[in-house]
Every structure is written in structure tokens, then in C-alpha cells.
């Protein structure tokens, strides 16, 4: 259970962009992330929009070539672009995207969508193609008569189920879920999450689950990592994490969550008031990237970028204040 399936070491991904004044600058979308994901766990990656979650995921998938650092998957270095990856690796690593609308080709029917991975990886012979597709649909709890439907005629939840079915079609061992439910309603989200958890158990999958919903994380992840402006600022075992959030940003996040019951309200750290805008990743403030919004900032924070420290066993945090503790 604890043996790592994927190790991300000092991963960096910078994008070159043109700013309005004609200058070229780097967006440091991912800026030195270290992350180890163990076999069979659900690693939760949380962070606000633009913090680099997707970029990280895409780099793992090979959609971007990393600007620096390495990604090890089952001890193999895979920090190359997907074009250079072997078919076997592609089979092992799959992703479900956030947007159920755009991740299915609107001009294909479900059968065509699902048969692609089966054909590419030679997982089905012509004869049993239909049966395989029916099986796939069943694993995501859709009835076989979806075979000939087109995505446009389906609801968001159903589409996302098809996306999941497609990701699972290659029988991968590692699946990245990039906010798979954030575009959906809570009732559908519940259904999908349940199904994902069930599948994880049955197929002994490892998930990297990306979301910005901490409440959701609380319920599904075994470990949680928080990202802010391209860096991981806190990482811990889920229980530990919610019991004792250390980073001021984590606390700010937690205290901002709208909740539906008094019990939950009681769990929120009350004191932190969210202030300020998230800076643009183009001009990240010097020092700790969070210091402009931090309620506990010191002079040190404006000058020096803190390093990750293990504040408690398995609980890592990047904060000058916590480092001193």
C-alpha cells in the first residue's frame, strides 16, 4: 500500500507568453513541485483556479514537456511529451477532464468514443467489441442502450460517466481526475464520486484527484496536497490535515467554505478573513508567494521563499511561521 507508484521531483513547467507591452515573460504555472503518490491511494490536489493543478496533471500525462524536474512512474522516467511515450505507458496512465461537454467528441456516438481505446490498444477483437463496450458501460452504471447515443443528447453527469468509462477502457493503473465533478450538480457529483470510489476498490486503481472543493476532499482522499501559485504549500494525511491545518492559506480556504450545518461550521477555522486577489502567476511576489494576503506575515515572508518542512509525521508545510514551530 505504501509503495510509491509515482514520484514527482521538483517539477517545473513555465509557459512563455507575450504580455501586452510586447515583452515576453514566463508564467510559472508549476514551480518546483515534489509529490509522491502511493500505490492504491487517492491523492487529493486542491488549489484555487490558476494555481497549476491542471498543468501539473497535464505534465504527468505528457501533454506538456516539463521545463524542469522529473516524473517517475513505476520507477521509469516519464518526463517526456506524450508523443514520445510508449503505447504501454499510455495504456497505464489515464485522465478524466473537468469539462464533460468538451471531452467527448460531439460528432461521435458513445460506441465510437469507447471503441477507440479498445482498438488502439488491441483490447478487443472485432467480434467482442460490442460486448466490451457494453461491459464498459456497465462498469460506469450506464445501460447498454447508450451505445448509439450522441454526447449532445446526454446530461453532464452521463457524459462524465462515459469519459470515465473511456479512461478505464485501457485498464490503467493510474488515473488522474481533473475536477471531474466540479461542473456538475451535487446530486450527480455524489453518484459519480461513489462510482469512482467503488471502481478504485475493485480495480485497485491509484487516483490523483484534483479539485478545489475541500469538503469533497475530506470525504474521498487519503492524502491532501494544497497548491498555491504553482507550489505545494501544505500536504498531509487527510484526517491530520483537517484536524490541524497549518498553512495560513489552507486556513483561509477552509474558513471560506460555505457549509450546510452547524457541525461543519464548528470545524472551520473562524479567524481568517479572505483578503486580496490571487496574484497573476506572471508576476509572483518575491518571497513567499502568499505573503501579500497572509494575515500572519512577517518581514521574512516578503524576502525569502520558505521551504517545505515536515511539521508533523507526514504533514508537510511551506511557511516560515510553521517552520519555527
Amino acid at each position: 500500500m505504501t509503495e510509491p507508484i509515482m514520484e514527482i521531483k521538483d517539477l517545473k513547467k513555465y509557459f512563455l507568453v507575450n504580455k501586452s507591452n510586447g515583452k515576453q515573460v514566463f508564467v510559472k504555472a508549476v514551480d518546483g513541485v515534489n509529490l509522491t503518490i502511493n500505490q492504491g491511494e487517492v491523492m487529493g490536489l486542491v488549489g484555487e483556479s490558476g494555481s497549476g493543478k491542471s498543468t501539473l496533471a497535464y505534465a504527468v500525462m505528457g501533454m506538456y514537456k516539463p521545463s524542469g524536474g522529473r516524473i517517475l512512474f513505476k520507477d521509469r522516467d516519464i518526463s517526456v511529451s506524450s508523443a514520445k511515450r510508449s503505447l504501454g505507458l499510455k495504456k497505464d496512465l489515464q485522465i478524466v477532464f473537468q469539462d464533460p461537454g468538451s471531452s467527448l467528441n460531439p460528432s461521435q456516438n458513445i460506441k465510437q468514443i469507447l471503441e477507440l481505446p479498445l482498438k488502439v490498444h488491441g483490447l478487443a477483437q472485432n467480434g467482442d467489441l460490442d460486448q466490451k463496450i457494453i461491459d464498459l458501460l456497465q462498469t460506469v452504471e450506464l445501460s447498454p442502450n447508450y451505445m448509439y447515443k450522441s454526447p449532445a443528447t446526454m446530461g453532464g453527469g452521463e457524459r462524465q460517466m462515459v469519459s470515465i468509462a473511456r479512461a478505464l477502457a485501457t485498464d490503467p493503473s493510474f488515473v488522474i481526475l481533473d475536477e471531474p465533478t466540479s461542473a456538475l450538480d451535487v446530486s450527480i457529483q455524489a453518484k459519480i464520486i461513489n462510482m469512482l470510489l467503488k471502481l478504485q476498490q475493485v480495480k485497485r486503481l491509484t487516483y490523483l484527484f484534483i479539485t478545489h472543493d475541500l469538503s469533497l476532499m475530506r470525504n474521498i482522499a487519503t492524502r491532501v496536497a494544497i497548491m498555491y501559485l504553482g507550489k505545494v504549500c501544505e500536504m498531509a494525511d487527510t484526517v491530520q490535515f483537517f484536524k490541524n491545518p497549518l498553512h495560513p492559506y489552507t486556513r483561509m480556504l477552509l474558513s471560506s467554505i460555505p457549509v450546510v450545518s452547524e457541525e461543519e461550521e464548528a470545524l472551520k477555522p473562524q479567524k481568517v478573513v479572505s483578503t486580496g486577489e490571487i496574484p497573476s502567476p506572471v508576476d509572483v511576489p518575491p518571497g513567499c508567494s502568499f505573503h501579500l494576503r497572509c494575515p500572519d506575515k512577517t518581514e521574512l515572508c516578503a524576502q525569502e521563499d520558505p521551504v517545505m518542512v515536515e511539521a508533523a509525521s507526514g504533514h508537510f508545510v511551506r511557511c516560515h511561521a510553521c517552520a519555527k514551530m
Partner: protein
Amino acid sequence: MMDINTQTAFEANIPSAATRYKENLRKNWYKFSRNKLSVIGLVIVLAVVVVAVFAPYVAPFPEHAGSFVDYEHANLAPSTTYLLGTDNIGRDILSRIFFAFRGALYMAFLVLVISLPVGVILGLLAGYFKGTWIDTVIMRTTDIFLAVPPLILALAISSVLKPNLTNAMIAVTVMWWPWYTRLVYGMATSMRNEYFVTAAELIGAGKFHILFREILPNCLSPIFTKMALDVGWVILLGAALSFVGLGEQPPTPALGQMVSDGSRYMPDLWWMTIFPSLAIIIIILGFNLLGDGIRDMLAKGEHDRG
């Protein structure tokens, strides 16, 4: 869709290929025919096609489309014998219009059949490989062809080749493809960032699959719409070409040529110009309306549920 929890009798629910086909047909027709103008367009186009194909049987004077002169009956105004009058050679204009539909359709068909794949494939490639040298080379070449005035290019080409319909079409084709390249390029560049394309890439699908199975089908609607519009443009360009002596050679009738020849005799022999012009307008109108209908039909979205 209600049966997420009850997973029984699966097989029974999958519609057979024939039903699906019928269902599809019914749905497409429904979407297409909702706008009555589209149906009118379809009827016009079908009528034109039928008339063109069966011209020898439906034309009152089929021999008037061939080598035929009858100066006794030249320049006659429309009458019961000659419904749309005769031209200055004594040929029945109606019959000639019917036969002219053949060339017009043939030309439009061939030009589009040749320029479409070329343009579309180049556009797909350039769009998918946006930012690479492939993009630069293809799109700059496109610009070059767009910058040359079409008539001059056509003239140059047909002065090398023999002036006849086929070569005129080659000429037109040479300047037609860049428009499709531009069109598809725009769509492909936005499409390649769609997640379904990425998903296919990550599954390991080949470039061919991505270009032609994932991206292309989603570009079809605007392509078809443009194609329908282009039928008219091609016919018009054919007319302009015949003005400078290229294209369909006499005595085979060509609409554009009839219009331009007839315009010399305006307004006295108005029927020589007006009726062929109307014929052009009708074809173009027909294809345009049809194009609108096809667009409606291929439109995807939530309204598809109906």
C-alpha cells in the same frame, strides 16, 4: 436513461442498425425541414438536378443544345412554342437553360470535389500543427494564392492549357482550395485544444485518426454550408471565365455565357439575358437555402434532444 440501478434486459434495449438508421433519418429530416425555406431549397436543387439529368427528355427542343442553327426563328420573344423565347441563333432558350444546368452542376461538382479535399486536408494539417513550420508553409502558400486575382490566374492557366470546360475547372480549382484551407484552419486550430482531441492523443490514437475522425467531423457543418454557397460562386466564376473565352465551348450552352452574350442585346431582346440570369439566381437560391438547411441539420446542441 432512468435505469441506472436496474441493469436488466440490456440487449433488448439496443436499437438495431436499421432502426437507428431510420431514426436518424427521421430526426435529420425533422431538423432540416423545420425551416420551410430549406425544403424549398431542396426541391429547387432536386428539380435542377432532375432537369439536368433528363434534359434530353424534358427539354422541348433538345437538338437546340447541339450544333443547330435556325435563323428563320431567331430572336423570337417568348411564345407558346418557345416558352422563354429564342436567341439570335434561333435556339429555344428554355431548352438551352435545361442543358446548361448540366455544365453548371458538373463544373460546381468537379471544382468542389477537387478543391475541397485539398483545401480541407491542408487546413486540417496547418490547424493541427499550428505554430510549426507546416502551419507557416501552408498558410503562407494560401496567402499567395489568395493574393493573385482569380481571373488572371485562371486566364494564365487556361492559356497554357486548351480552353475547355475541364481546364477552366482546373483553373477555378487552383484558386478555390485556399478558401477551404482558411476555413478549416480556423476551426482546426480551436478544435485541437478541445479535450476530446487531447483525450484521443493520450489514448494513443494516431495523427490520422485525430485529424480525420476527431477533428474533421466537427468541421463539416461550416464546410457544407460554404460548399452550398460556393456552388453559386463557381457558376458565376464560370460565367466570368466564359466572357474571356474559357469554359464551356459553343454550341454547348452555359448559363454565364448566355447571360453575357444576351446582355449585348439588352433591352430589346431582354429574354436572352433575363431568363438565364433567373436560372442562375434560382440555382444559387436553391443551393443557399439547402445549405442553410444542412447547417440546421448538422447543428448540434441541447436542442438535439427533440
